[in-house]
């Protein structure tokens, strides 16, 4: 069981992911904007952040990863994106990201990434 902050603005993805993560036994907090996620993370103290690279606001997943990692070095950030790998890597250069997951994604891919991230955080 872990605390997972899910930051995603696509409603149907949120539904499937939230359901899957909860069923896997995790505690999930959702947000659809970067600012909202950053503001709410303090009280929630997530171990893993699962965020889309592009969000409804301008800042996006990269800002979430930067700001939250600055407060908690043990936090692991997983970024999901529909972009080509090279472009995603370029946009996330210098950002503390544990893993970039390229869409389309299976829930089981996400589950595996989260387990790895938790094991890495120790």
């Amino acid at each position, binding site marked *: 069981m872990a605390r997972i902050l899910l930051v995603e603005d*696509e409603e*149907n*993805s949120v*539904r*499937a*992911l939230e*359901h*899957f993560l909860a*069923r896997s036994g995790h505690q999930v907090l959702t947000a659809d904007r970067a600012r909202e996620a950053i503001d709410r993370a303090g009280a929630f103290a997530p171990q893993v952040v699962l965020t889309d690279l*592009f969000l409804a606001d301008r800042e996006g997943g990269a800002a979430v990863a930067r700001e939250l990692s600055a407060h908690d070095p043990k936090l692991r950030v997983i970024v*999901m*994106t*529909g*972009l*080509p*790998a*090279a*472009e995603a890597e370029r946009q996330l250069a210098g950002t503390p990201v544990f893993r970039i997951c*390229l*869409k*389309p*994604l*299976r*829930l*089981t891919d996400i589950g595996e990434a989260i387990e790895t991230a938790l094991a890495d955080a120790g």
Partner: protein
Amino acid sequence: MDSRHEAPQRSPERADSRRPPATGWDARREAERRLRQQQAVAALGLEALVTMDLQEVLDAVSATAAETLRVPFVAILELVPGETTALLRAGRGWREGLVGSVRVPAGKRSAAGQALAADEPLVIEDLRRERRFRPPRLLTDHGVVGSLAVVIQSRSGPWGILGIHSDRSWSFSPDDVHFAQSLANLVTAAVERQRMEIELDRSRTELALHAAESRLHRSDRLASLGTLAAGLAHEINNPVSTILMTAESARMEVDERGLDGRLAGDLDVIMDNAERCGAIVHRVLDFVGEHRAEMTVEDINEIVRSAARLARTTIGADGSREHRLTFDLAADLPRLQVGRGDLEQALVHLIGNAFEAADAPVRVTVSTRATGRGVEIVVQDDGPGIPAEDRARIFNPFFTTHRERGGTGLGLPLAHRLVADHGGTLDLDCRSGDGATFRIGLPADPPTDPSTNGQRG
């Protein structure tokens, strides 16, 4: 009218064929003259056709005519297209500044026009008594009296006139006329040669231009495809991801509740196809995406061998087809700075294409050689070759002739792209007979940033 035969013979040495047999002395002098003329034409002819450009030939013909016939004036006139004038292109004896600039009339009532209209060389014994035309000022100003004019032909009609002029009233012997005609023929040959060289040059330029253009079009196509694919990838991957996750979520629910097997199967179909969409998008991205391979100094032969191993294991795994792969690698290749993985991939695609395009086992030969500018890698096969109608399309994305054997139509375009990223060229050699021959030209000095040649994904 055959004016040369009408002209009265004034000088005993300028013999006409109708004259009574010449005396021994005359005959010897005539033979000597003929020999001298023939030697002059022969000497000039060879040199003219081998080494000289047209103007040099015209100058040499003018000099030879003047010296051999011992006349003070020679004019080579070139007809000006679309006009009834002719330009004094070359000559001897004329006042300074005239050669290359002065034009003479070439209409029906002119001397030049008369020469052009006649079937045979035009002989004017005494210009002052001429009534058929108005003598041109060029001739009267220089005190020309006797003239011989021979038309210089070309494939497309008369090109101009060779005029041989004397300040004396003069009848030309048949040998003189024959000599002038030989000189005119020489000019014809030089004119034709120049015309062919110009045409050849134009064809070469057009070919080079065409090759450059089709390369440009290819990279244009790739550039627009790259932009399109990157945008499309994002727009497709997101909803496909939602489909996949939602179907998977439902599939988990079905398992949990132990629902009927048909629903599970349907959800599996949805998931499989969603994943397939994703795979296609990623394959296209591989093709158009940026290749930022690290550039390192490499032994090209070693890359060729390693690519061949890769091609064998990835493509030659199908044991039913026993393709043969041979090498002809030059020992003296310079080491080049390349993106090793990218170059390997390009070669794997070329070798793989040779394997896949053939119904029967093929022999593929990969050879390398040093060129002045870098290294050339040739991938040649003895397969069915590429039909002329397909040659322009083989570098187009998604064009394939072997889709049923797994061809995606992205291998050759990707190889082309990867080679272009090295500042190199990949061309299909259409001259070869059987099979297909692809040539990779790699420059010794690649672009410093290979990604500047690539298209942004």
